[in-house]
């Protein structure tokens, strides 16, 4: 059981290799089944891992038995394992959806999907900044392949922008890692926190520059305001199951921001404590506003959902900037909720587009959908959830967020922006819904019925919303525990670096 923490990384990796080998590779059904079964197993394993972390507290695993701070370690605390659980849950839904036919529109859908999962899980579990870079690259190169899956002009155009931007981001990431390694002499996140706390004054500005460059990289991944222009085009042009899984990729940026700025540059960092908040709070709030306006202005439903992703990213980044335990707990709950619901909405957009003939998901009058009751119900649940109306999980999430803003200034800003943006999202969604379902011409529907597997996948993702509400009590406790563990740097330091005395920083 000690090696269980490596399972979320190794299992997708081995599955991807197996899918590419002859007995499986030549049969579409075998590829699908293997992919689905593997992600179901992964979901079970990470839930076991979560229970283990609940019992034993933080677990760390030295890869190749090279102990921290010298080797690479994997760290499983409640926060990272909850994120991995979320990814596995989402991946299962997305793979089911893709297996209904979307995967055969191009080659290597399932292997790339599994490699993407490996990268995402690795990025959540790693305890080393350079290893984080490596996992970022693993997930990025898989996402490049998935983005142009099924081909087409729009996808190629979006992919060029996405790839160039992310390569630039990787270059900046490496610059900042070099600065931080040159001054701190380590890349282990926990060890860096120790070194930053005892930083000599002459290195202060260098570390600050390195830390802020890191913020640029993570903000690019998360799509925060000045760096968000790639997101709507990329997410709306990707095929539906890919866009659904991409919904968790922005959250990796948010997770990395939370991890780095609350551990390395947290309370103990002396003059560097909370250095990112001054930048992140305005950027996050502006992202909320921009996302809400973008949602109102979207010409098609997929762009609208992509803008909803922006709203959720802005909310999360503002919460990260607040840097309190309460806000981190609210952020974790909201991450789970918003990722699942936006992913589900991407799938719903595809279902609707498939049934409206030529009009697709554009917000113009078109043919009627062939399953108005089913799709209408799914759309309504998704819309109510994402807008944050009771009784669905968005309401609980927004309530936690509003409660977590304690200081007067942040409270005024956050409350007004979140409530206003919710209103704008409701307006945008009701406009979209009435156009898609009611402004119909003719009596013929534009396509056949949705395959049962796709309907199952959407319901699987949307089911999380009522569950998140029903089990809101235990889940808020869980996210509060995760936040407490995140800010309890002493315990994590003792458990990870326990055997080694704290060394002087490098001359």
């Amino acid at each position: 059981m000690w090696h269980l923490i490596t399972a979320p990384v190794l299992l997708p990796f081995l599955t991807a290799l197996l899918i590419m080998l002859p007995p499986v590779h030549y049969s579409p059904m075998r590829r699908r089944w293997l992919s689905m079964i593997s992600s179901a197993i992964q979901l079970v394993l990470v839930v076991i891992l979560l229970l283990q972390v609940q019992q034993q507290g933080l677990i760390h695993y030295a890869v190749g038995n090279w102990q921290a701070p010298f080797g690479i370690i994997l760290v499983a605390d409640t926060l990272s394992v909850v994120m991995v659980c979320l990814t596995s849950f989402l991946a299962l839904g997305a793979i089911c959806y893709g297996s209904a036919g979307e995967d055969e529109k191009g080659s290597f859908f399932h292997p790339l999907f599994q490699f993407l999962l490996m990268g995402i899980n690795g990025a959540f579990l790693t305890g080393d900044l350079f290893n984080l870079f490596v996992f970022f690259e693993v997930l990025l190169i898989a996402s490049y392949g998935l983005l142009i899956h099924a081909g087409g002009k729009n996808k190629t155009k979006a992919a060029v922008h996405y790839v160039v931007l992310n390569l630039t981001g990787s270059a900046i990431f490496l610059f900042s890692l070099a600065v931080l390694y040159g001054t701190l002499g380590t890349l282990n996140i926990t060890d860096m926190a120790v070194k930053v706390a005892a930083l000599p004054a002459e290195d202060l500005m260098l570390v600050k520059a390195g830390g802020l460059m890191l913020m640029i990289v993570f903000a690019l991944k998360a799509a925060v305001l000045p760096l968000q222009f790639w997101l709507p085009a990329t997410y709306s042009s990707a095929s539906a199951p890919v866009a659904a899984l991409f919904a968790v990729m922005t959250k990796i940026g948010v997770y990395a921001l939370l991890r780095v700025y609350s551990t390395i540059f947290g309370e103990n960092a002396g003059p560097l404590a909370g250095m990112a908040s001054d930048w992140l709070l305005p950027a996050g709030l502006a992202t909320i506003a921009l996302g809400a306006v973008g949602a109102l202005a979207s010409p098609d439903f997929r762009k609208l959902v992509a803008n909803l992703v922006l709203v959720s990213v802005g909310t999360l980044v503002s919460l990260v900037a607040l840097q309190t335990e309460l806000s981190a707990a609210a952020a974790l709950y909201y991450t789970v909720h918003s990722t699942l619901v936006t992913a589900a909405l991407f799938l719903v957009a595809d279902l609707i587009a498939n049934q409206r003939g030529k009009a697709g998901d554009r917000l113009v009058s078109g043919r009627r959908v062939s399953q108005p009751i089913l799709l209408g119900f799914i759309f309504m649940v998704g819309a109510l959830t994402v807008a944050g109306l009771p009784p669905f999980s968005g309401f609980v999430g927004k309530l936690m967020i509003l409660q977590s803003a304690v200081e007067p200034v942040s409270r005024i800003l956050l409350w007004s922006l979140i409530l206003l943006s919710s209103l704008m999202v409701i307006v945008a969604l009701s406009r979209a819904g009435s156009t898609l379902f009611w402004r119909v011409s003719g009596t013929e529907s534009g396509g056949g019925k949705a395959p049962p597997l796709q309907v199952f996948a959407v319901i699987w993702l949307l089911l999380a919303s009522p569950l998140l509400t029903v089990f809101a009590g235990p889940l808020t406790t869980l996210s509060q525990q995760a936040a407490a563990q995140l800010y309890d740097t002493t315990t994590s330091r003792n458990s990870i670096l326990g055997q080694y005395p704290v060394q002087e920083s490098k001359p």
Partner: protein
Amino acid sequence: METLFACCIGFLTACGVFLMLRGRTFPVVLGLTMLSYAVNLFLFSSGRLTLRGAAVLGTTEQYADPLPQALVLTAIVIGFAMTAFLVILAIRARADLGNDHVDGKLPESELSKKESR
């Protein structure tokens, strides 16, 4: 040595950024390659520049930090793969979109030139 090294990295970065801001995909690819060279050199220098220092303990008086070397190696491999992918993607974009501009369409000025011809 440090000054020369720093100037080299600075020059490479400047060239890279300039090329990346061009409108066609080929200069952008070249710019990214330049930038990744600059990054690799910079990463290497984070272990300090030492002359005649082995990365193995006990063989010389002075020794070099082996970790940045390992990091650079990883970064080179990843950068190489990414550049290869980007080149293929740029060719694909040229075929799909009918031109080699990053935005997928010719800018206004070139369009009018083409029409007047």
